[in-house]
């Protein structure tokens, strides 16, 4: 479990991005989810996807909690047999995006608003344009995808959906090298990093 920006943070709640590298195992999603639900902690966003390594899965979980709570959650997650590694990061430590789709009636859009202006100003693109409706797509932070809802609402927004968050850790150098360590019978220090020891290296891990 790591926080790559180990600076003393106030005890207040903030968004944390928890990145979990796992084996691809049926039931693991539940095993991880109940670590949160047992403590009555809401998961704001959850995404699972393949990672850069074949057979290794990656979870991105967003919670709004204190660092102390997030550290304990991360340790409990990393304790699960099929979990290889857990990192947690604040929003400043990651590059993150969410994708949103908006369905609006084509006639109103075409009539009342300049589609081109909408697309330009909101970094959106039209995915589908049909006679009856048009689907726009945008990616960005929550505020950005929210902003387009407000804009499209007067034009008869029919349907809106937003994806879970995906996040890339700024300081991470990927998982390939680490995985090789895990596969050894006697894992090296790389995978058994000690959070206290690594303070000086800006790595907060276990």
């Amino acid at each position, binding site marked *: 479990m790591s926080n790559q920006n180990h600076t003393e943070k106030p005890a207040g709640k903030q968004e944390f991005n928890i990145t979990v590298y796992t084996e691809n195992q049926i039931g693991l999603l539940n095993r991880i989810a109940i670590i949160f639900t047992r403590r009555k902690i809401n998961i704001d966003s959850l995404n699972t996807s393949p990672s850069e390594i074949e057979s290794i899965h990656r979870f991105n979980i967003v919670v709004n909690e204190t660092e102390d709570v997030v550290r304990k959650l991360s340790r409990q997650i*990393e304790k699960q047999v099929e979990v290889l590694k857990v990192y947690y990061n604040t929003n400043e430590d990651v590059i993150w995006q969410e994708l949103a789709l908006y369905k609006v009636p084509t006639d109103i859009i075409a009539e009342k608003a300049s589609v081109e202006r909408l697309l330009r100003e909101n970094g959106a693109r039209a995915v589908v344009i049909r006679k009856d409706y048009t689907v726009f797509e945008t990616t960005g932070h929550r505020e950005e995808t929210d902003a387009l809802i407000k804009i499209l609402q007067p034009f008869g927004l029919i349907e809106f959906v937003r994806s879970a968050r995906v996040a890339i850790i700024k300081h991470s150098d990927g998982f390939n090298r680490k995985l090789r360590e895990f596969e050894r*019978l006697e894992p090296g220090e790389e995978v058994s990093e000690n959070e206290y*020891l690594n303070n000086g290296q800006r790595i907060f891990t276990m």
Partner: protein
Amino acid sequence: MDEGTNQLIRSAPEMKKEFIMEIAQQEIPNSAETKTVEVSGSVALLEALIAEGTEVIFGYPGGAIMPIYDALYDYKEKLNHILVRHEQGGIHAGQGFARTSGKVGIVFATSGPGATNLITGLADAMIDSTPLVCITGQVFAHLLGTDAFQETDVINITTPVTKWNYQVTDATEIPEVISKAFYIARSGRPGPVLIDITKNAQIQKFDFAGYKPCDHIRSYRPKPIIRKEYIQKAADLINSAKKPFVLWGQGVILGEAEKEFKAFVEKSGIPSAWTILGAGAIPTDHPLNVGMLGMHGNYGPNVLTNECDVLIAIGMRFDDRVTGRLDRYAKQAKVVHLDIDPSEIDKNVQTTVPVWGDCKETLPALTELIQERTFPEWIAKFKEYTEKEVEAVINAELHPGSGELTMGEAIHQLNELTKGDAVIVTDVGQHQMVACRYAKLNKTRSNVTSGGLGTMGFALPAAIGAKFGAPERDVVAVIGDGGFQMTLQELGTIMQSGIDVKILILNNRFLGMVRQWQELFNENRYSFVDMTSPDFVALAAAYGIAGKSVSERSDLNASLEEMMNHKGSFLLEVMVTKENNVFPMVPQGCSVAEIRLK
């Protein structure tokens, strides 16, 4: 995984390939020449259990596990199956076996209700870190999710209370999955593992290439790497301490580090106190053993927790029953915490120096770096508190002289007979606290109790398992009148297996611990704690078990002697005073320093 990633779920053959790759790394000689034999999944399971050294299985058959039981019919000589009377009894027996033997307890149950009856035991084993491998039958794979007869979603129900669980739907997975199950159950911080096997996989024939034990899973690190820097820091802190205090827990026993621990304590000269699961790791009468921690622990260890300058916690997890009010717990002390489970560090108590690792390895390294010291004045302080406790509590409990019998004197007189060599299995409640406080334990693995979960009904079945785990030792189950009635059907298991277990019922005709709280905190409003019991001696007789009831002080010793000398199981009911309270006590919400003597 969720539905969006469905296509990424690996098929069973793919998984097998991975296992084989894992195994291939381990250089098995002549693996190319290994012959395969066509066997059923059930036979492969039993062969795997034998290869893992299984001696005894506690189980109960049923529809979905019938193919395994059919295979077991031919393995009667190699595997000793004990038919319990309820699956909860089976799993508690497995726990008792694991606790006294240090091996993995094996439990069989069928699908649906058989599996759900295991839940209490799984939760108990999970919180008390007891290694178990539980095998449950499951409906045919093609019936999963159809609400088939005796179908329950066992994997999801057991996920929060298992260290690992897995559903087998293809027989070819069985050898590898069982090897993983044993490896996970007993390595690192031990815990219960459940393997759910669908009926088709039990029946299915496949080419079995023999059993290879697992010793590595790439995503699982049972032991954190030991950092010498932290052992040095811990040693520096200990060497500079003026009033150091050691707290030890079951980790010392689970890590089989009793010798290493004793060497550490004796060289350091530090007074040491135990959690109830740690009891017996060093003998009760060791000069540096200052007693029991926690809500009903000894006076000195509780009060002086808040006076020590360095607190050294070894293989214990700062349970709330040990710490009392956390924000007033050992705030003055620097804390050294030795634990194999990294998630325990800083979980409840902030650590100054964490020492991650197996204490069998960390303790000798630490012992080497510490100075040989003695703390006569500091230890004298513990003795002062002991004297106060003896005067205020212990004398009246152990040597009441007149009036009705007490639980304490029964345990005290039992000590005289066992000399501290017996395994004491306790249930949950007042008698548990009294037994843990006063039982003399000379050896490790002598105290079997439900510590974390506090499962009433634990003791009788656990005692059965404890005896199988330590057949050469006397096993005494100390049980209250309430807890005994939760699993008394296991008298049938005792009868049928012919096992020798001594049952000591301390009958106060109340659910005593709840009554004590109602007296102290609910103004004597005794809400549903009055317990009417059957004639326990007659009940034992119905199961062919000898028994006796005693209520007179003059008969107590002779009755206990009769029980201990009896060949075979014996039930002794001791009628004790109804409204005795267990003291000292740290009331809920109070700090350990606010422990009450009355």
